[in-house]
């Protein structure tokens, strides 16, 4: 495909190729190429444009250093990478962490979930629906952006309120980071998540400070974030009908509720072909036929994973590998977790879904597969997950014991291996660590962006976001607003 931004004629019955590079308001470097026919996307390619080589950089280092190094994969969700890393280390080193260590880790990751979901909706995605001020960085923008006020002139007040919330959310996400820092040391890139538990033993005073900040965040989520998502959703009902993709998802389980790590706030599971399946990690492998990695490394299970970049490989178009579960391209993220867990919906959500959609929805799956696996359904899932976790953070604040040990000194074995399974706010994340001679022999990361934004697999099957782009309306090729809108709904 040509790298030309706009090629071909507009209008029904004609074919147009559109490239969006960079896709902005995401983390990282991403390019989207779509083919549009009859006003709809009929083909799509996603290209990850950056390779840094964390997996090769980690080789030969002290295994404990990995939790610091891997946080630098992503400055938006470093706590998730640290969590996956310390869990992999605990497994490889045979460390059993304390109850207080487990709960403190939940308080650190939980606060960053709040931060990440709020940042995503307001500061990354909201400008897809809400008109910002007429100054940089809010302009320039598409001439026809299909914003709230374009759809309905009567919504100027709603738009203005949402802009105010954009500003307020800047404060709220700072407060969330203060909560992370309380036990994590600083944000981004927390020091407090370490092999063997957490380095900060919560004190009574610190817990009071955390709880006071949490109350403010709670109020914002209940009174602002959740309602505004449904208000926006009610104006974009058409976006509940597009972007379904493969209707397949995976979740590893996150926020362990017991020391055996068998119960989670959001449980593990896989869904495809209209059926639920228990998660079996042996079914995960990574293809690289269309990725800039050596063909000899394709189809490997992550415990055997290799990282050999070949940036000029013919036919490849992305630095993202293509993970598959039993051959299925599964999406990850709040939608996947909410679909697998199927928790109760918020009272606000239940009321709004009845009022605007005539739905009697009590639990998430009551949205139905069509609406849940949709562009707007993914925003609803994220907002509802934010609400759902509020009561869990309250519970952890009651369970955590001030002054009780959070840390067990780990012993680095001569050899060993382990996998850390967790969920970043944006989706399933695993880290695999293999130790030889007390040093890192192999380190493999399968991140949320790998799951969602991957290219075709060896069989030619599109990645989850690529597939979700199919059918997305692009009535005006000069203003292809729905393309990045769909991509952003995944929080890539």
């Amino acid at each position: 495909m040509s790298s030309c931004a706009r090629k071909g004629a507009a209008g029904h019955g004609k074919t147009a190729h559109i490239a969006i590079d960079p896709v902005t308001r995401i983390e990282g470097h991403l390019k989207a190429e779509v083919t549009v026919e009859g006003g709809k996307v009929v083909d799509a390619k996603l290209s990850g444009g950056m390779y840094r080589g964390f997996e090769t950089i980690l080789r030969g280092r002290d295994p404990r250093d990995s939790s610091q190094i891997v946080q630098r994969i992503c400055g938006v969700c470093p706590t998730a990478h640290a969590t996956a890393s310390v869990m992999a280390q605990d497994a490889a080193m045979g460390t059993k962490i304390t109850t207080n260590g487990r709960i403190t880790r939940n308080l650190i990751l939980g606060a960053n979930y709040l931060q990440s979901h709020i940042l995503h909706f307001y500061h990354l995605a909201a400008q897809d629906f809400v008109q910002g001020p007429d100054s940089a960085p809010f302009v320039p923008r598409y001439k026809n952006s299909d914003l709230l006020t374009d759809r309905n002139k009567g919504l100027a007040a709603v738009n203005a309120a949402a802009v105010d919330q954009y500003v307020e959310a800047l404060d709220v996400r700072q407060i969330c980071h203060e909560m992370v820092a309380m036990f994590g040391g600083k944000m981004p890139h927390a020091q407090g998540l370490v092999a063997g538990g957490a380095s900060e033993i919560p004190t009574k005073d610190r817990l009071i400070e955390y709880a006071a900040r949490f109350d403010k965040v709670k109020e914002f989520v209940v009174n602002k974030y959740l309602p505004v998502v449904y208000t926006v959703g009610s104006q974009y009902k058409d976006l509940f009908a597009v972007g379904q993709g493969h209707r397949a998802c995976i979740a590893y389980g996150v926020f362990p509720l017991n020391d055996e790590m068998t119960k989670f706030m959001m449980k593990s599971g896989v869904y495809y072909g209209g059926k639920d399946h228990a998660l079996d990690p042996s079914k995960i492998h990574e293809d690289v036929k269309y990725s800039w990695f050596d063909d000899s490394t394709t189809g490997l299970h992550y415990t055997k994973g290799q990282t050999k970049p070949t940036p000029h490989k013919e036919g490849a178009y992305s630095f993202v590998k293509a993970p598959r579960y039993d051959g299925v391209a599964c999406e990850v993220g709040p939608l996947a977790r909410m679909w697998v867990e199927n928790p109760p919906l918020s009272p606000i959500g239940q009321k709004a879904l009845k009022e605007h959609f005539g739905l009697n929805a009590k639990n998430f799956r009551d949205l139905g597969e069509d609406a849940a696996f949709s562009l707007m359904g993914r925003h609803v899932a994220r907002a509802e997950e934010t609400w759902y976790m509020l009561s869990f953070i309250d519970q952890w604040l009651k369970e955590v014991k001030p002054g009780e040990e959070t840390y067990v000194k780990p012993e680095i074995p001569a050899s060993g291996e382990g996998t850390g399974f967790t969920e970043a706010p944006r989706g399933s994340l695993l880290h695999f660590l293999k130790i030889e001679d007390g040093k890192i022999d192999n380190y493999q990361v399968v991140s949320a962006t790998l799951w969602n934004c991957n290219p075709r697999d060896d069989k030619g099957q599109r990645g989850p976001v690529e597939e979700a782009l199919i059918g997305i309306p692009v009535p005006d090729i000069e203003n292809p607003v729905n393309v990045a809108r769909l991509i952003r709904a995944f929080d890539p």
Partner: protein
Amino acid sequence: MSLSRRDFVKLCTGTVAGMGISQMFHPSVCEAISGTLNGSRPPVLWVQGSGCTGCSVSLLNAVNPHIKQVLLDVISLEFHPTVMAWEGEPAMEHMFKIADEYKGGFFLAVEGSIPVAEDGKYCVIGEANHKEITMVDAMKELAPKAAAVLALGTCAAYGGIPAAEGSETGAMSVKAFFEQEGISTPVVNIPGCPPHPDWIVGTVVVALEAIKTHGLAAGLGEVVKLLDDQGRPTPFFGQNIHDNCPYLPDFEADKMCETLSQKDGCRMSVGCKGPNAMADCFKRKWNNGINWCVQNAVCIGCVEPDFPDGQSPFYEPM
């Protein structure tokens, strides 16, 4: 109201007890410095190379002036991949247009390092005029036209983790890239993984203030005078963490902590690299004064040019 360089240095070095630098920036200061360049908020182009967006996220934690003021009153952020409304080729072309329009009068903020191996293919940042633009291409095009470059974070300042041992991408710092390409635009390094928001905002504000007082060239000259031999502003990076650490009396009494969660005793026994690190975290603290690394666990020397290789293993004594 205006702030002289001497006042600024005084504030930064903590002569005013109990106040962080950002707390000293009154809104009227922001007002006073807007209009420094070109009669309006100075245009800033923010490009991301091989990085993690952590520097941008850290900047979002700026408290006073609040990030809102920084964005709306202090600078005109004409290009920033994570926050701007615009996208795709038109956004890239807008960036290049601003660089031409404000040649010699805009700031270029660089986050992430510049991977030069394989013709720059390891970091493609977008397309313009139907052509793929690598980070290398963007730097060659933008850097010579900028008034000054802010190398934000340890990746841009010194290479950082993308340039660590085991990397195959040829990632390098802004300064090293400029030397290789013969680009002479002044560079201010603001290292840290990530840098503290005060270090970023404080440097921008003092630079704008100096330019306003002395004119562009002389003002930038004043800023360069503040830099140490690693290109960092001494007001923020002029003091050693260990020498100023609240645990220093413990160290001198040979009282060392035994585990990461034990909060009394010097933390060098569990790997703290404070003696290697030049930064004012010990008094500035992070996230609105909540905490800092040594209080929580250990310093890993993230502001230093040899981070991470020269500062690791992180949890072994030096």
